[in-house]
């Protein structure tokens, strides 16, 4: 069959069939619950250069669309039947933390290399300093478990037993890892079979050109969308509360440059590489999927008919400064890069919101805590179980309230039923539900946060909450919309002592302790004082907001019977100045922070750090924060404070370079 515009959709459907078949095979044959339930995996059909041509659309993790295997594929010698793998974040920047094992298989037809099929799964544990291999506290990649550089797993039908033995000796649950590895093998074998069906249908020549046509189709779609966006430079910053255990905030700064049908994302001004595991190992690759996924979300939101493949990234380019948190170099730890990835995403959403505020939503909640508990059963058996994600809703959009409890860049997450948690783990859930007044106020309201409250009954129980964030820096609102509510984490002992835990992510509990996590809320969109009064009333009736918030945040006065007091409402709403709608509605945490750390001060901070040796950067950042925190603040942007502070430090640490700043 000849390949042209008339038939392109047929090839697209066949490639989708191959990708979906791979995904279902992986899910069906996987051993670990992590893959079957959390769906933390991806699979793809890759062209001979290693670029993703197709991946499943309704299952698996969404972050790997447009994944490029190129750097790890090149330079290896391939024979028909070979299968390779890697899990090393510092070999070609394909794997982005050690639990992710990527596998790929070359597909030959009549002796010619036609394409590759690949997949990755997140293994529950790959050894290292802590169970599950991930912790914010780790400082070097060597602590994060086994790293497999690109190497051969199968040749001539023979498994590389040496490699399997190394895996067995280095991980905590070897049967599970090897079981999942088998599922990955089944996945690429299915992929190969489906590829042969496609080649037989279209012929090798048309198949090869078709893989390019599909990418060029996606490229055209992307360019057509980008061309409708006004040219310009749009900068935005977003923050995490802590850059390490009890650390200072971390900033992701991005400048989105739109020129005709191209986009450049410049991350200059983002935090330096950190001595925690929040680093993202992109290798500085300008089309790295973790740097660009937010743009793909944005393009898809503008046009859900786009083809999800590497072609979408052709008009895109990221600038990822070396030694920054978005381009960490060995031996930086990278285990918790997902927290940073979330902030990269919301920073990019913030930039897009300036481009087309009438098309994009306010910030999603981010800060989704992944709760795990380690405790013991009545018979003394050790139990480790995931209790599920606790986060918040999507940002409100230009036409709708934000999705409640979860959504936007976290849409792929699934929760664990309360009944399963209680049947599996000796805990009691005291509450699981939405939090009133947590969604940012707006003409459209941000998605509400989730609250989970649990009581533990055994001594020495340890609860971990990965990706704690957004206690201080909350989800921003848009076009007059307010920020979402802040996250909270607290422990109440049997003696009714309450302990605020903030961003703590590992908590030791005594019997009877009650832990409560309140997620952050999504940002609101548009002027809340213009939200139709009956919708505000409905929100009160439905418990999404309290009568007090109806008055304070929306200017709607309700009677005791929750009817609208029209006269009072009109009066209150008239008193609100509706002409000054700021583009971004930041929460109190950010506003207070930026009074001291003005964008200008932070810019000069990142400029200074960029000019010193990578190994010094996080240390100096902390020192400068220590100084500025206590230093009397000079007028205006106070750039000079930061420079002076650095110059003082330089005197104490003569290894630091001397700059002539400003």
């Amino acid at each position, binding site marked *: 069959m000849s390949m042209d*515009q*008339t038939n*392109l*959709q*047929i090839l697209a*459907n*066949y490639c*989708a*069939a191959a990708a*979906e*078949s791979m995904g*279902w*095979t992986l899910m*069906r*044959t996987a*051993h670990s*619950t992590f893959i*079957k*339930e959390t769906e933390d995996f991806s699979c793809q059909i890759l062209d001979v250069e290693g670029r993703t041509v197709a991946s499943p*659309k309704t299952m698996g993790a*969404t972050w790997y*669309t447009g994944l490029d295997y190129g750097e790890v594929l090149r330079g290896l010698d391939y024979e028909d039947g070979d299968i390779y793998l890697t899990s090393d974040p510092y070999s070609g920047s394909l794997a982005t933390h050690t639990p992710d094992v990527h596998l790929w298989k070359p597909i030959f037809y009549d002796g010619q290399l036609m394409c590759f099929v690949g997949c990755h799964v997140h293994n529950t544990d790959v050894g290292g300093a802590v169970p599950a291999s991930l912790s914010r506290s780790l400082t070097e990649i060597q602590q994060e478990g086994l790293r497999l550089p690109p190497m051969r797993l199968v040749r001539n039908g023979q498994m590389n037993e040496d490699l399997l033995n190394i895996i067995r000796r280095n991980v905590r649950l070897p049967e599970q890892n090897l*079981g999942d590895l088998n599922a990955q093998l089944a996945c690429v074998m*299915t992929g190969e079979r489906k590829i042969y*069906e496609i080649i037989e*249908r279209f012929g090798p020549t048309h198949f090869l050109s078709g893989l390019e046509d599909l990418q060029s189709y996606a490229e*055209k*779609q992307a360019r057509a969308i980008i061309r409708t966006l006004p040219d310009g430079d749009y900068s935005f910053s977003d923050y995490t509360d802590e850059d390490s255990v009890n650390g200072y905030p971390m900033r992701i700064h991005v400048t989105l440059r739109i020129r005709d049908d191209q986009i450049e994302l410049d991350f200059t001004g983002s935090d330096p590489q950190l001595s925690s595991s929040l680093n993202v190992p992109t290798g500085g690759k300008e089309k790295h999927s973790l740097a660009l996924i937010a743009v793909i*979300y944005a393009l*898809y*939101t503008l046009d859900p*008919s786009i083809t*999800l493949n590497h072609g979408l990234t052709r008009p895109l380019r990221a600038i990822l400064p070396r030694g920054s948190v978005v381009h960490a170099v060995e031996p930086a730890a990278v285990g918790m890069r997902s927290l940073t990835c979330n902030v990269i995403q919301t920073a990019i*959403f913030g930039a897009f919101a300036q481009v087309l505020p009438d098309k994009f*939503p306010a910030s*999603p909640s981010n800060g989704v805590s992944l709760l795990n508990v380690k405790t013991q059963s009545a018979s003394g058996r050790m139990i480790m179980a995931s209790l599920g994600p606790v986060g918040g809703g999507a*940002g409100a959009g230009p036409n709708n309230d934000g*999705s*409640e*409890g979860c*959504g*936007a*860049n976290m*849409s*792929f*997450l699934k*929760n664990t*039923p*309360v*009944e*399963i948690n*209680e*049947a599996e783990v000796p805990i009691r859930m005291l509450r*699981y*539900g*939405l939090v009133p007044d947590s969604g940012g106020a707006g003409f459209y309201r941000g998605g509400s946060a989730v609250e989970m409250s649990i009581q533990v009954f055994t001594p020495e129980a340890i609860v971990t909450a990965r990706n704690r964030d957004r206690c201080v820096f909350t989800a921003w609102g848009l076009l007059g919309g307010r920020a979402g509510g802040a996250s909270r984490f607290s422990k109440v002992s049997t003696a009714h002592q309450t302990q605020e835990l903030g961003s703590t992510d590992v908590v030791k509990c005594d019997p009877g302790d009650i832990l409560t996590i309140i997620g952050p809320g999504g940002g609101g969109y548009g002027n809340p004082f213009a939200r139709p009064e009956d919708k505000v009333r*409905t929100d009160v*009736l*439905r*418990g999404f907001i309290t009568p007090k918030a109806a008055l304070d945040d929306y200017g709607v006065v309700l009677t005791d019977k929750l009817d609208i007091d029209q006269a009072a409402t009109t009066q209150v709403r008239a008193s609100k100045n509706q002409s000054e709608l700021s583009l971004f509605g930041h929460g109190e945490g950010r506003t207070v922070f930026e009074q001291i750390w003005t964008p200008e001060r932070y810019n000069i901070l990142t400029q200074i750090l960029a000019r010193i040796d990578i190994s010094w950067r996080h240390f100096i950042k902390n020192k400068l924060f220590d100084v500025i925190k206590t230093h009397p603040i000079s007028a205006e942007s106070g750039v000079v404070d930061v420079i002076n502070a650095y110059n003082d430090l330089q005197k104490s640490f003569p290894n630091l370079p001397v700059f002539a700043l400003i």
Partner: protein
Amino acid sequence: MSYRVGVDIGGSFADFAVFDENRKTIHTLKVFSRPDSPGSEVLDGVKLLREKYGIDPEKITYFTHGTTVGINTVIQRNGLKLALFTTENFTDVLELARLKSPDMYNLLSRRPEPLVSRDMVFGIRERVDALGTVVTPLEHASVIQALNAALQQGAEAIVISFLHAYRNAAHEQQVSAIIREIAPELPVICSSATWPIIREYERTITAVIAAYVQPRVKYYLSSLQKALKNTGIRPELHLTKSNGGIMTAELGKEQCAQMILSGTASGVIGAGYVAKTSGVEKCLSLDIGGTSADVAIILNGQPHYDVGEYIGEFQIFVPSVSVSSIGEGGGSIAWVDRFGVLKVGPTSAGSSPGPACYGLGGKKPTITDAFAVCGFLGNATLGYSAVTIDRELARQAIEPLAKQLDRSIEQTAEAIIHIALSSMYSGISALVSRFGIDLGAFACLAFGGAGPMMGCLLARDLKMKETLIPPTPGVLSALGGLIADLKNDFVSILYRDLDENCLPEINDHFNRLEVQALDWLRNEQAHDGEYEIIFSADMRYRGQSFELETPVDIQALRRGDITELARAFHHEHKKVYGHADTGADLQLIALRLIIVGQTPKFELPVFELTHGAPSAETRVSAWLDGRYQSLALYHRSALRPGHVFYGPAIIAQDDCTTIVPDKTRVTIDKYANIRVVPELI
């Protein structure tokens, strides 16, 4: 003289299948459905049966019906205003669902609006733990308070779903009793009585859907019962159930969760029966209508069962015949995007206005129009003369696309067909990998108005063993109701580790389920015939988050052999997932029982085999594989069992058209099925 009648009422047509018990023959009939006046299509049909076949309504001894009224109520969102009572502090079970959004890449994606809004959800002070022990006793006052508020806010029915009610239903029952005392007319549905499974969202949404559709289902069934009575039909109305069985309509009015997929299940049951009779062990049923294309896996005549079938935007978690949607059917509209790429669907012309070639006002080019342009349709009458094909209208609809693509109208039409086929190929491929089956050993059993048109082509692309077109593909659903057995599912949650000590508990639970099941069959269904009981257990390795239904050898258990359970599970796990871990600990989540009360069966008529080839009615010119070819056109009624001929060919009959591609051999088997197998060169 006595007759058994099955009726399937869809969006466009109501199909009748009548089995003449004396002559062992089947009559079929199609009339327009009348959504405006439920029941009147049955009157029309019964009248026509008398006119056409001389069937006296008083001689009808058995009447079954498959309906989509339940599913339509959810899709159209015109069900009851419900109140939901949950355990206090867990009122957001519907708002949160299982979190995941339908369109993961879209920042504006939202989960569907819950069927019960949050102001109608009330937390009741009570608590039971995972072992079924009461932690907080039911607080009467909180029930009264919730009930008053619900009534004041206009609740028309109440659903009660408390945590761990699958284990201890006492609180749900107590609340139900309190409500009955205060508001005796108010319908009340308990999650534990609807389908008592673990996982609160799944159990709650199942009960909510059941309650939501109930009044419409009840009204519909009552109208139908009245209509039947008026026509002199005496036997009690039976319904096909989601699980592929039947139950009385009276019970269906109360247990809507069991009948919501009535319509879809019927077709698969019919297909299963045809497959089994025809000696087809492995079969994929392909049901393509004007607005939907569905497939199901059938092994040895038994459809694959699953939970979590989609009802519009929601899933329901009662065991159901597992049917996967693979497209929008013959009405899907073709279009060219701004980059010049030809696309098909997802927009559909539906049954109204329908494809352009029907001449009912549709102007958009559909898949059906593409087949008409290529010369496959319009060679004989379709849909019992209800529809005539105007090929020129189809050409006019496709012409603008052809101009955009710079192709001939025929080339464009064939591309549309291939895109539609490739999209179905994609949907079926996913299913194949999900269940780990090998399609090379499967037959494609095509039915529905458009199934035979696409079945052979799809089977060719999927490299399937053969394609089978039953004698009356348009009315297979109606036939399904005729052969379905009385069938009900029962479940009991254990949720415990599997060890030697659990044998008495297991036997005790199975015994209790058996008593319930027999009560259902003998008393509620008044069935005094043969029956069969199937025992199974939902088990898993500890640490897994999903269960696998494992067949149980009840005799072994009753002999005291508990090890059989573990053996069976490892075997099943290996079969389904490709691996088993015989050293791992097992958890026993639920025990299940299915009771099947056999209804009188009829045999599909068997014909004498003749020899030779049929004579083609005529030859027609049709565009196939890139060129006009002269194809033999057969009328189905001219094909005799034993006939053998070769593709390409077109077979026309009253309710559909079968397209037979090149390089195939066609035989008519002794049941008058068309069997199309690839000819190996």
